């Protein structure tokens, strides 16, 4: 196995293209090293992208933020302005693993690992995040909800890698929140994860909403029916109940060692309601 640490996007793209599929990108390594140790992946070359400046920066962009794919959870948590604008996204990333994992893990890695239960993804979907990808044919942008195509599978072609995310600006009276269910208080993979983002007008009526749902299908889902249940309402308990029901209908989970179909479906509704109330409170206070 070779280890390379390129300093530009172009170099990284070349290395990955030349590896013809046996290359693996290394950011925080909290997924990759576990897979290496268990023999699940046997890459020919590991391409460490952390020396590429664009993957490690957080910069303002059009009232929102451009966040490097290899920025760690710990660094995101320390960025006050980003936390203020997108508290749900940051709290979702903060839930990934332990403090030690947070010292290394990144949003980019979390998305690219493409676990259906990845914590950051429902929140990124709810936020309407965009992915910036560099590859042999140049650079492209993709909405985050299109990035994962199946468990462990992404839209990335050979030679491409995820460079950064764009998180949009927010109108006034906007809030987002992410909640997940785990059996313990920490350290578990999400059994269900829900991200809700909404914006209210000056009368408290919801004018925009997005809801992301994780761990209940082959990929995290953008649940438009759930958002539709909130738009045009004051996000009262009646609207939340309709949203909850839409969430449960969207679930396509499996039975596995982390949860059953029945359980996941039930709890997804409970969490959606709870996350919605937090997002609402944040929107009212912003």
């Amino acid at each position: 196995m070779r280890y390379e640490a390129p300093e530009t996007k172009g170099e990284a793209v070349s290395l990955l293209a030349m590896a013809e599929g046996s290359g693996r990108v290394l950011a925080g390594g909290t997924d990759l090293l576990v897979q290496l140790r268990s023999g699940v992946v046997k890459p020919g070359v590991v391409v460490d992208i952390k020396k590429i400046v664009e993957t490690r920066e957080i910069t303002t962009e059009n009232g929102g933020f451009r966040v490097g794919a290899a920025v760690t959870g710990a660094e995101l948590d320390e960025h006050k302005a980003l936390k203020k604008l997108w508290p749900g996204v940051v709290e979702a990333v903060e839930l990934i693993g332990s403090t030690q994992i947070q010292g290394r893990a990144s949003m980019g890695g979390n998305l690219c690992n493409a676990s259906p239960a990845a914590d950051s993804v429902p929140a990124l979907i709810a936020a309407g995040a965009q992915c910036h990808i560099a590859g042999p044919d140049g650079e492209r942008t993709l909405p985050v909800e299109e990035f994962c195509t199946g468990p462990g599978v992404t839209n990335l072609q050979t030679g491409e890698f995820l460079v950064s995310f764009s998180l949009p600006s927010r109108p006034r009276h906007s809030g987002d929140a992410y909640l997940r269910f785990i059996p313990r208080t920490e350290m578990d993979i999400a059994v269900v994860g829900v991200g809700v983002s909404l914006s209210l007008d000056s009368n408290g009526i919801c004018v925009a909403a997005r809801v992301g749902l994780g761990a209940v299908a082959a990929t995290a889902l953008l649940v438009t029916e759930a958002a539709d249940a909130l738009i045009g309402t004051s996000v009262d308990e009646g609207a939340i109940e309709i949203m909850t029901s839409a969430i449960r209908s969207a679930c396509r989970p499996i039975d596995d060692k982390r949860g059953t179909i029945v359980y996941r479906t039930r709890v997804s509704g409970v969490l959606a309601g709870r996350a919605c109330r937090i997002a609402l409170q944040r929107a009212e206070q912003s």
Partner: protein
Amino acid sequence: MAREHITTTVNGDPVEFLCDTEQTLLDVLRDELRLTGSKEGCASGDCGACSVTLDGRLVCACLVLATEVEGQKVTTIEGMAVGDQLHPLQQKFLDHAALQCGVCTPGFLVAAKALLDRNSNPTETEVRYWLAGNLCRCTGYDKIVRAVLDTAAEMRG
């Protein structure tokens, strides 16, 4: 196959070692540098027994490739005491009986120090969540949390 040559700093001292690309920082600390204070409990980042800091960040050494630490600063449990002076956390762990078998203790000490370096007045809840990545099977965590809170109080003066 040729091994990689890495130059880094460990506990303030310049260090060089040879490693395979598959070796983790934990493998190298133990098997090449014989710094066996950091332990392997799981090799998958779930137990925290290999906790070290990398450029000031608390991480699991089992999830860092040895090649990644080129030019970086690593601190381990072996760097916590200064000469024969124990760090206040180490002394408080002894005073509070915050260890029984002791295998998780280096990881807890490194992690707790990382907490107190950032937050000199953590609540019990903050301590528990910060240390959630460090497993202990012997103590039930009670005396560990008390030791950390007591150390924080003492260090605040």
